[in-house]
């Protein structure tokens, strides 16, 4: 990468998106004109580049001048708004958005897969009466149910299938 390209790259990075293209294109053209003019006087390209950079001053200083004008409103209200959109700020805003989206996505994922987000019902016990196959008498039986598969019932609600896991005779 040439010194000119480095210069233009730094300038581009320091300017707000709204005015970057034109300003950088104009400075690029300034370089082309200056280098061509120096060449007519027998100055080599590399030396002409250095001379032009020296006369323009540091890219950051050039960007700072324009930014100061933008922020002061000297370039109009719209331009002032644009001045707030520097690359660094855009990058920071983009990072915030990306992180926010990632957090939201992970929250949704947790909601889908974690029992903590929508806790499964605790095991429940129910007393049932069954008919004893041998004696034909009714007999109490304590059945413990646990949550099985989760089902979405729509409207944000969730239902759970239950399955009996233990059977025992109630004690007094």
């Amino acid at each position, binding site marked *: 990468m040439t010194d000119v390209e480095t210069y233009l790259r730094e300038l581009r990075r320091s300017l707000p998106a709204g005015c970057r293209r034109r300003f950088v294109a104009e*400075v690029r053209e300034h370089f082309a004109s200056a280098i061509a003019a120096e060449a007519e006087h027998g100055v080599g390209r590399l030396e002409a580049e250095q001379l032009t950079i020296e006369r323009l001053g540091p890219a950051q200083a050039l960007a700072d001048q324009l930014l100061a004008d933008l922020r002061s409103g*000297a*370039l109009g209200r719209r331009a002032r708004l644009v001045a707030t959109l520097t690359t660094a700020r855009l990058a920071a805003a983009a990072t915030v958005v990306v992180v926010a989206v990632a957090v939201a996505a992970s929250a949704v994922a947790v909601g889908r897969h974690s029992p903590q987000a929508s806790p499964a019902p605790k095991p429940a016990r129910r007393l049932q009466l069954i008919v004893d196959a041998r004696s034909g008498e009714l007999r109490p039986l304590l059945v413990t149910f646990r949550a099985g598969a989760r089902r979405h019932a729509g409207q944000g609600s969730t239902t759970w299938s239950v399955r009996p896991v233990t059977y025992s005779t109630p004690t007094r």
Partner: protein
Amino acid sequence: MEGDALRGHLELLLLAALARADQHGYALIEWLRAQSNGALDLGEGSVYPALRRLEAAGCVSSAWRADGGRRKRVYRLTKLGEQRLRAERDGWHDLVRTVGLVLEAS
């Protein structure tokens, strides 16, 4: 004459340069340097923001123009720019006259 001394007068100089002909940034800088026999040592980087200020104020307009296979942003003085140039030129002459009177009396 270096940048600090020119500060505040740069826009007047640019308006004066554009009153002669429509020009792009580099040509403006070269013309000013030539007219001052090299005495005006413009901070060239300050010219482009100054042109932007003048454009935002409605004193100049600009457009890309093809020139020798390259695109150049060419500036033109507007009616408002002509008025401002007249006013600032008068102000400058008044300042020079006034300062001259004081210096000659000392």
